[in-house]
């Protein structure tokens, strides 16, 4: 294995083929296109989080805050600024990204459980704001009254507002760009400094790497990526609500990353797919979805701490 999480060429190729063809095979196996879109969006969110969790070794447990800020940013932009999907994505990404960068500067000196506690607690600030600021955010009922808009590029017109499949491919394109940037980043010298910090912070420092600065940049980038995912999520649902910001979503994102495999690039996407599909299926059967998720957390920690791809890779390269 080289520095960044490369799992060998066949795996990424298979993933891209599956994603490209998803609208065609999802139906026959009992799924639906919007479920695929959800997997892409939450997968992107979990992969963004994993830049910190798996590749920098920093335990951020409040990432739903940045995801939710992206969602609210995009929704508010559509509602109050302009009827433009690209602008909504941009403003959503900036909202969460900037807030994350600011908070990151405040907490980069903390580590381990201290860092986890501070990120959880600060994440809840935005939950309370969204919950309380009724006039702007719609409070507990969530933000409504906006809808994603079609995109017109010269002669091309993309009917993403009404056509779920077109929207899927739009999200897939966004996903591909974001994931491509992440992959480039992880293979760059900067990306390798993050691995260095994950592996041994002290050694990194004594190689002349200012650890706090690099963690801060990684934190800010991770927030930018996850807010982008959050903005896409608001477009998917034409809705944003305080639960998008709540720490239980942070927990869900962490478990997706762990379930799929934190140490592999694609693991969090796989984890998101499993999680989203299970959620969709189980919540149609029982109202005790919470117990089920709780049990999933416990089982993953006890039996799959390296995640699904972690197990595959261990067997592949051992």
């Amino acid at each position, binding site marked *: 294995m080289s520095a960044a999480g490369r799992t060998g060429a066949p795996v990424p190729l298979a993933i891209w083929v599956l994603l490209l063809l998803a609208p065609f095979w999802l139906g026959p196996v009992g799924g639906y296109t919007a479920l695929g879109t959800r997997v892409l969006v939450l997968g992107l969110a979990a992969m963004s989080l994993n830049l910190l969790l798996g590749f920098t070794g920093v335990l951020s447990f409040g990432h739903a805050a940045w995801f939710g800020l992206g969602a609210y940013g995009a929704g508010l932009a559509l509602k109050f600024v302009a009827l433009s999907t690209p602008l909504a994505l941009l403003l959503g990404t900036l909202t969460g990204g900037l807030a994350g960068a600011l908070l990151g500067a405040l907490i980069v000196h903390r580590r381990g459980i201290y860092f986890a506690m501070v990120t959880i607690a600060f994440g809840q600030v935005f939950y309370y704001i969204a919950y309380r600021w009724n006039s702007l955010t719609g409070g507990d009922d969530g933000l409504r009254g906006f809808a994603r808009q079609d995109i017109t590029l010269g002669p091309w017109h993309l009917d993403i507002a009404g056509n779920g499949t077109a929207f899927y491919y739009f999200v897939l394109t966004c996903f591909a760009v974001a994931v491509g940037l992440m992959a480039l980043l992880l293979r760059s010298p900067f990306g390798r400094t993050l691995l260095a910090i994950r592996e041994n912070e002290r*050694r990194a420092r*004594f*190689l002349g790497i200012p650890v706090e600065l690099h963690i801060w940049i990684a934190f800010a980038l991770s927030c930018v990526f996850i807010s982008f995912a959050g903005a896409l999520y608001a477009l998917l649902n034409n809705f944003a609500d305080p639960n998008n910001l709540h720490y239980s979503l942070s927990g869900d994102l962490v478990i997706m990353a762990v379930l799929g495999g934190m140490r592999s690039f694609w693991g969090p996407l796989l984890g998101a797919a499993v999680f989203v599909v299970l959620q969709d299926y189980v919540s149609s059967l029982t109202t005790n979805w919470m117990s089920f998720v709780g049990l999933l957390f416990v089982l993953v920690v006890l039996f799959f701490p390296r995640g699904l791809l972690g197990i595959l890779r261990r067997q592949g390269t051992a």
Partner: protein
Amino acid sequence: MSLLEVQAASRSFGSLVAVRSVSLTVAAGELRAVIGPNGAGKTTFFNLISGAVRPSAGTVRFDGRDITGLPAWRRVALGMARTFQITEIFPELTLAANLRIAVEAAAGLRLRPWLGRRAAAAVARGVEEVLDQAGLTAKAGRMAGELAHGDQRAAEIAMALALRPRLLLLDEPTAGMGEQETYDITRLVRRLHQERALAIVLIEHDMRVVFHLADRIAVLDQGTLIADGTPAEIAADARVQAAYLGHAAEAAAP
């Protein structure tokens, strides 16, 4: 002028004084050893030089510049590199990746989000060079954490070398090693010293290694510098003998 100049440096942790007003100079190209019984404050002294901890009092100058308050990572940029008593490497990366990170850090590339073809080639050459110097070329593809103990120690020295330092601080490089490995490391250190005219400060317990390598030896006991001189002077110093014998007697008593 001395490359490194420590003046009356002290450090206490709570009521414990680990280093008490120690002064020491290292000339460019000099190989210096720091010895002393366990708990003498050698590692704390190293931490003061390398910036891992701040001195409670005193100053540290490097190449004429006061670096007392400078964070560790900046000292690296000035030309100071160190190893640790317990090996500090990146265990779940390959040896080559370990060194690559060091080479890129030294080349000031650490913030680059991409690397051009020429820069990448230069980095690769740098990695090969250091691997070769440390005699680790054959093991480049192995996970660093899975290497033999001696190879891990050598790998850490190689990472320090990749930083192209002017001063190299080695904290017990032969700790936990067998005869052959100790010999190999000793030879490596001497070669670096001679071929590169690298200034080295060495903490070491193995007296054969110390007396074989060092130009000058400083002796710490209970945080205080009790002797500083050539190997011959140190061997004849009554206080040094007393310090070691005293501790040996303590250790022998139940």
